[in-house]
């Protein structure tokens, strides 16, 4: 079964090729079959491989399939090789499985779009590149996938290219992530310089022998890799691109900007955990970045009016949780939250897409309302997703994954009470803005009549994802409740476990859990009061000068765009403008000018008079004979 691993990334690429070459001729039905089918078969193979992996793990808990040699120059050897271990299996499963449902959903969502097959071609290319990213056994292949998903993200954000704002958002996403990618590339050079190889497993085994804990090179390399992760995963300070990326079609937001691509940074850090452990400083920076991002994005999420932007900020915030978990060394908790987040955030985006479709493509929540009756399936599944995002206690999967992170933020080796407090406060904000969204969208007065009632292609993905958003959490229960650790046991072969440190203080853990649970419920109640029961409290507050300013500040994403505009964009544009006649160009302008002068000089001698030419020959002969005679 393992030998079929190469098919998993190949099939989406094949689907992309067919759709890109023959998309126009195939028509919508066939395009949908190719686009959804390729991911479906990939998902099926992944599940079969996963069952095999669980029942009889391969030797050394990792299966490596070398397909061919990519580059071989002296010591520099890079193979196209796939590396399947517990970590990449979880990612592969989420990418293909969640990806399949999103593709199925897209069939209905994009049904009326003229570029139907182009959409599926991009989506298939994305899935293929993402699988390459998580399955690649060396950093160069990972980087190839990394850039591939960046390209697809760019193409899909700017999918409706006729609106220039979408093109702007696409360029912004591409350029901002490029900043991180440049750092990451330098990090890869540094790793190759230190170890002479880019193979991930070799680096991880060599690192503890070459570098001692706290080695400067280790710190620099991990910080550079963190730069790449921060760009891709929209963390502070490169988080500005994700809210604008919502310009793309909603299934894109679900697949790329919520479930998979934006978690590539989490994957990268988890994958390179061996060298991060050698750099405690970098680990601390990762935790700080995560904690700061989850708070900032949470605040920004409080005042958004566009339903997709609320979800975008919540995505940034939830990935902040994952970074926090990575930073304190709770590797498996981060991956667990990644998986659960992929389920409920994809669900929320798909639900939001169904709502947008039903409301004549209106995205402003405050123009909607009262949709609970009209769209019952969407409402209930959206409610489940929101509950999971807000981490409603006991019943939702999000509670178990987030609770683990919050507890580890305190109890883990790298954790402390401030990180814990940030995480708890972040959970409170999350619950508030999530249920603000639910109450505003689904309750109250219906303002726009429903234009599109979803069919089974939308309902089935919603229900399946809702199932996982609800029950996915039961594969990993905290120490206080049964101590059931199926997921982290599974990941133990790829990521170091850490529960020995964590479960010393049971009463503190109870306290942390009960506090988060109560705060989540309180936040929901607060949202209920402020946005359903007595909305005048909010309007009264935003009518005051301070309230209005604060609202604007949060709405703009805490002014990061404003700051970057002044810090980077304007000076850059100013330099570009003043240096329009590039001064380095002067040298290159001088070269053709000089050769042209030579040209004029020599063309003067070409008089057309034969006797002159003969004179020239005679003089030349005299000169050369003289030289010969003299020498």
């Amino acid at each position, binding site marked *: 079964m393992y030998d079929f691993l190469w098919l998993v990334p190949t099939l989406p690429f094949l689907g992309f090729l067919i759709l890109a070459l023959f998309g126009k001729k195939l028509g919508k039905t066939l395009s949908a079959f190719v686009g959804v089918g390729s991911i479906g078969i990939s998902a099926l193979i992944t599940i079969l491989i996963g069952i095999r992996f669980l029942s009889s793990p391969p030797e050394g808990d990792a299966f490596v399939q070398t397909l061919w040699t990519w580059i071989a120059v002296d010591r520099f050897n890079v193979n196209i090789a796939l590396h399947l271990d517990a970590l990449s299996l979880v990612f592969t499963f989420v990418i293909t499985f969640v990806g399949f449902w999103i593709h199925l959903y897209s069939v209905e969502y994009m049904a009326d779009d003229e570029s139907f097959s182009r959409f599926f071609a991009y989506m298939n290319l994305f899935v293929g590149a993402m699988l390459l990213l998580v399955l690649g056994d060396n950093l160069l292949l990972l980087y190839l996938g990394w850039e591939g998903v960046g390209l697809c993200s760019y193409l899909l954000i700017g999918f409706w290219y006729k609106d220039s704002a979408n093109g702007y958002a696409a360029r912004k996403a591409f350029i901002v992530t490029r900043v991180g990618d440049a750092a990451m590339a330098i990090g890869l050079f540094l790793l190759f310089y230190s170890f002479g190889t880019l193979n991930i497993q070799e680096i991880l085994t060599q690192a503890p022998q070459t570098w001692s804990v706290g080695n400067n090179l280790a710190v620099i390399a991990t910080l550079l890799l963190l730069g790449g992760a921060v760009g891709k995963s929209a963390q502070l300070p490169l988080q500005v691109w994700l809210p604008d990326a919502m310009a793309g079609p909603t299934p894109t937001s679900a697949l790329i900007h919520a479930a998979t691509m934006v978690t590539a940074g989490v994957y990268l850090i988890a994958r390179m955990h061996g060298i991060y452990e050698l750099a405690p400083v970098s680990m601390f920076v990762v935790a700080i970045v995560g904690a700061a991002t989850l708070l900032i994005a949470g605040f920004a999420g409080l005042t958004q009016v566009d339903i997709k932007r609320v979800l975008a900020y919540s995505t940034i915030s939830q990935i902040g949780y994952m970074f926090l978990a990575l930073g304190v060394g709770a590797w498996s908790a981060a991956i667990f939250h990644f998986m659960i987040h992929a389920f409920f955030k994809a669900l929320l985006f798909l639900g939001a897409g169904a709502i947008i479709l039903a409301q004549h493509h209106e995205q402003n929540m405050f123009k909607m309302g009262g949709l609970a009756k009209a769209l019952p399936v969407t409402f209930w599944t959206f409610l489940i997703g929101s509950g999971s995002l807000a981490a409603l206690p006991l019943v939702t999967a999000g509670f178990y994954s987030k609770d683990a992170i919050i507890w580890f933020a305190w109890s883990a080796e790298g954790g402390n009470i401030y990180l814990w407090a940030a995480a708890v406060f972040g959970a409170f904000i999350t619950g508030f803005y999530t249920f603000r969204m639910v109450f505003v969208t689904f309750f109250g007065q219906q303002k726009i009549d429903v234009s599109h009632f979803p069919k089974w292609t939308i309902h089935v993905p919603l229900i399946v994802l809702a199932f996982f958003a609800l029950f996915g959490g039961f594969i990993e229960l905290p120490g206080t409740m049964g101590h059931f650790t199926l997921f982290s046991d599974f990941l133990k072969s790829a990521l170091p476990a850490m529960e020995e440190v964590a479960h010393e203080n049971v009463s503190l853990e109870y306290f942390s859990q009960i506090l988060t649970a109560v705060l989540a419920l309180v936040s929901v109640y607060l949202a209920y009061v402020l946005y359903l029961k007595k909305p005048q409290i909010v309007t009264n507050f935003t009518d005051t000068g301070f309230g209005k300013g604060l609202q604007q500040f949060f709405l703009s994403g805490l002014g990061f765009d404003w700051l970057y505009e002044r810090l980077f964009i304007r000076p850059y544009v100013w330099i570009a403008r003043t240096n329009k006649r590039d001064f380095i160009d002067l040298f290159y302008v001088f070269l053709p000018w000089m050769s042209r002068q030579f040209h004029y000089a020599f063309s003067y001698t070409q*008089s057309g*008079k034969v006797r002159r030419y003969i004179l020239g020959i005679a003089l030349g002969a005299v000169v050369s004979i003289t030289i010969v005679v003299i020498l």
Partner: protein
Amino acid sequence: MSSISLNTGLVIASILFFLGFLGVMIRRNILFMLISVEIMLNAAGLAFIFAGASHNAPDGQVMFIFILTMAAAEVAVGLALLIQVYQKFKTLDSDAASNMRG
């Protein structure tokens, strides 16, 4: 037959060569330029003959026959060009045919 020394012979050949060369440079009429070129060729041939005679080798005469053949071919092409030039410019002045200046 009294033999002429190689030196004298080469001097005669050089004089002939320079006469021809001067003719090519000074004359404007293409016909005369052609004739002058022939004189230069014959000067070269004469030098070969003298050299061959002084070495008692037949090579010089062989070379002369080559030069003669080459000269004949050259005159054929040259005269054809000359007729073309005359038809186009109605004159044999070489300076008139200076349309191809850079």
